[in-house]
């Protein structure tokens, strides 16, 4: 079974924010929630680099570990999903996440943050595939349609790759050998450096 991963190629990203727009459009995401963002380093100086970042669907996800109600589960393809019905909106996943992925629809005064929202790798949630409830809570389920995440598919320079970790690693390896340098895959050590943890919720949809 494939292990789904994201890969951001800093040599290729041109900071067009196409992935961000694609994500918002695909899932009809409300204002203030940003499942994906592009961060630019050394902005305005020679050698600046941009990286698109969202939930990386970590192998040993910190959000899963700290969640007081265990809303997270992992599909058989390693995609970290969550059940919004169970979410209490405590914000602990946001404290723990290295990538700043968890988002909240409310500002949080008196701890009222609403239900956590994050990148689903376009794989929906625990509701039945293609149901209205699934779309309203988690957005489109492209994985069930046999497609890959909209952000990566839409990327004009193919800087952002999403899919089977082995396949995208091969693509990246080819790029690196062609370039001759620069094999740093951003975020992979943090996201996939630890041994894979089993799905938290037993009997979760895979």
């Amino acid at each position: 079974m494939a292990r789904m991963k994201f890969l951001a190629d800093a040599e290729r990203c041109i900071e067009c924010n196409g992935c961000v727009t694609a994500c918002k459009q695909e899932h009809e995401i409300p204002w203030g929630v940003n499942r994906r963002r592009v961060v630019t380093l050394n902005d305005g100086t020679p050698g600046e680099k941009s990286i698109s970042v969202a939930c990386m669907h970590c192998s040993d996800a910190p959000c899963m570990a700290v969640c007081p109600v265990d809303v997270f589960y992992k599909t058989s393809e390693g995609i970290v999903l969550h059940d919004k019905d169970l979410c209490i909106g405590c914000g602990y996943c946001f404290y723990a996440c290295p990538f700043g992925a968890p988002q909240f629809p409310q500002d949080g005064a008196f701890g009222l943050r609403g239900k956590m929202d994050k990148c689903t790798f376009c794989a929906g949630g625990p509701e039945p595939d293609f149901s209205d409830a699934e779309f309203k809570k988690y957005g489109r389920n492209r994985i069930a349609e046999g497609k890959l995440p909209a952000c990566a598919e839409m990327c004009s320079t193919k800087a952002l790759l999403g899919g089977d970790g082995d396949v995208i690693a091969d693509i990246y390896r080819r790029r690196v050998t062609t370039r001759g340098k620069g094999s740093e895959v951003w975020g992979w050590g943090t996201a996939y450096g630890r041994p894979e943890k089993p799905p938290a919720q037993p009997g979760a949809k895979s």
Partner: protein
Amino acid sequence: MHGNLALRWVAWLSIALVAMLLPRFALAAEGSAQQQAERQIVQPLNNAPLWRDVRKGENPYQTTQVRGIETNVLVQTEGQIWREIRNGPVTVYGGYLLVLAALAILGYYLWKGPIKVHGQLTGRKIRRLSPWDRTIHWTVGISWLIMALSGLVMLFGKYFALPVLGYTLFSWLAILSKNLHNFVGPVFLIAAALMFITYLARNMPAAHDIRWLLKGGGMLTGEHVPSGFFNAGEKVVFWLGLFLFTIVVGASGLVQLFPNFDQGRVVMQYSNVIHAVTAVVYIAMMLGHIYLGTVGVEGAYDAMRYDGMVDEAWAKEHHEYWYNEVKGQSTAAGGAASPARAAAMKEGWKL
């Protein structure tokens, strides 16, 4: 003349040195960006300076279109540390502490049983607590209990309640707990402040408190140790619990209660750990207070719960100095037996 020249040289040299060093200090922040730019010329595609910055999360030229808290930070490594501390020592040792505290109390109860008043009750009652004393005590007490129980659900519930209740039911409990925790919290803090003022004068440390503490209040030996209105144990609960722990738990809680003031994640992580550790110690300590205030000491609960009156024998047994004070006062005021005063005390308008 010669010396003058040397001095001049020294002056020139120092100015030159400062001039050489100044731009370095000014460029310290830009250094990484500079390094990255230079590296691109000598070694294209070698982004080592850049990745170093990403790991440190300190690049001043890190920007993003997304507005929000720390959205320009690519990787925050502190989250992992927080996870290890919270899921590790805080949960594990915190859990041990609470279980051990409960077991110690149970053991004491089985060994010694409730502390009874020696000798006969006199039937003569004296006023110990005014209606306000009791109202504020229970406002704090009930809100504290809500905070403690809901907090325990959020820290430990996943391990003991979730397997029993299942996901849906436990989630309802946790949502209820979280909302109660967030809205009762401020009520608890205000009530605790009022309680602090109300009980402050009666909790001033006295010399005999040290003797009481050294003898452990006679809890183990059964020895009679006299005390004032409150014994030293109660004063410890007052100063350590109601004063210190409440301030620490309150401050660290408020930081987390209002994330809309844009505090970063590291501040939240620190607050969360401080909050959890203090709260667990607070709960462990208050278990003792709750035990002694209910089944542990005969007559204690009734006084706080119903009318604020205690038997003279109880007062002499547990708070002898206070008892003597009250008796002295009443004798001076015409004797406790005076019907008018007894009626007044029953009405509860005077101590």
